[in-house]
């Protein structure tokens, strides 16, 4: 017997990285080469999910590479009847197209995940199984902040959540870690101010990560 209620529908998670695993001869060490194809597959799954009429709302994750989006989904969002798009959302063009596809059909939420520290995040980016050139990190972290600000300022009906992810290393050791998330409790206007303050160019990110390249 199922442990879930009769009408329970798990979230539909659309993650380009999961689609990569379905591509013939996929190799995580060369993940970048498979990215375009996996994004196409994810876009198709997204459209099918919207058309199905089975979901109450759609959640778009937003945040640079390795910022903790997948970890947030897996620990906070799975038991909901929603479509979750697990991508960086670092291009205004891409989110505009997606928002047009959803239109007024279902509720839309954007969850922006920002790592408390970019260098820690870059350390993870460099050491996980999926490998991308570091320019992908730079582009997505700068782009996601820009896109989130654009949504806050231009799409009033889209609900926006701002989450900070952290690893909380202790004073004694960088190796003693615990992952944490904190929701930033601000009004929309305050959130715009906060996100304006953390805008960062690709050049600025490059300068931060240079000692680790």
């Amino acid at each position, binding site marked *: 017997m199922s442990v879930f209620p009769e009408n329970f529908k798990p979230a539909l998670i659309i993650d380009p990285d999961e689609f990569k695993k379905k591509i013939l001869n996929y190799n995580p060490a060369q993940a970048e080469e498979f990215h375009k194809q996996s994004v196409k597959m994810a876009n198709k799954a997204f459209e099918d999910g919207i058309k199905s009429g089975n979901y109450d709302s759609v959640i778009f994750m937003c945040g640079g590479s*390795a910022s*903790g989006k*997948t*970890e947030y989904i*897996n*620990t*906070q969002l799975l038991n909901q009847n929603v479509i979750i798009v697990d991508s960086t959302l670092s291009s205004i063009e891409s989110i505009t197209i997606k928002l047009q596809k959803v239109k007024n059909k279902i509720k839309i939420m954007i969850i922006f995940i920002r790592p*408390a*520290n*970019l*260098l*820690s995040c870059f*350390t*993870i980016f*460099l*050491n*996980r199984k999926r490998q991308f050139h570091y320019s992908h990190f730079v582009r997505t972290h700068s782009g996601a902040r820009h896109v989130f600000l654009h949504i806050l300022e231009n799409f009033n009906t889209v609900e926006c959540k701002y*989450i*900070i992810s952290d*690893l909380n*290393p202790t004073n004694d050791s*960088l*190796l003693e*870690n*615990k*992952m*944490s*998330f*904190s*929701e*930033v*409790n*601000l*009004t929309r*206007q*305050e959130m715009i*101010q*906060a996100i304006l*303050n*953390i805008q960062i160019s690709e050049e600025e990110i490059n300068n*931060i990560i240079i*000692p*680790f390249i």
Partner: protein
Amino acid sequence: MSSVLKPITVDQNNPVVKEYLEAFKKGVEKLSEKQKKILFDSISKDDLENKKLLNSIKNKSLIENKKV
């Protein structure tokens, strides 16, 4: 600060979380002492700045609301 940041409980045993933490650990182990210092200083600096920035936005907003 507690009113600005609402902590969310995270299951540290979740396999995806474990993998994330492992990647960080693996990365830190590869760093030189100099890089470790850069990382640690950067974490401490960001921690302070994040708190300062969010608090200042909240406080500014509270003051403006009082004026109204």
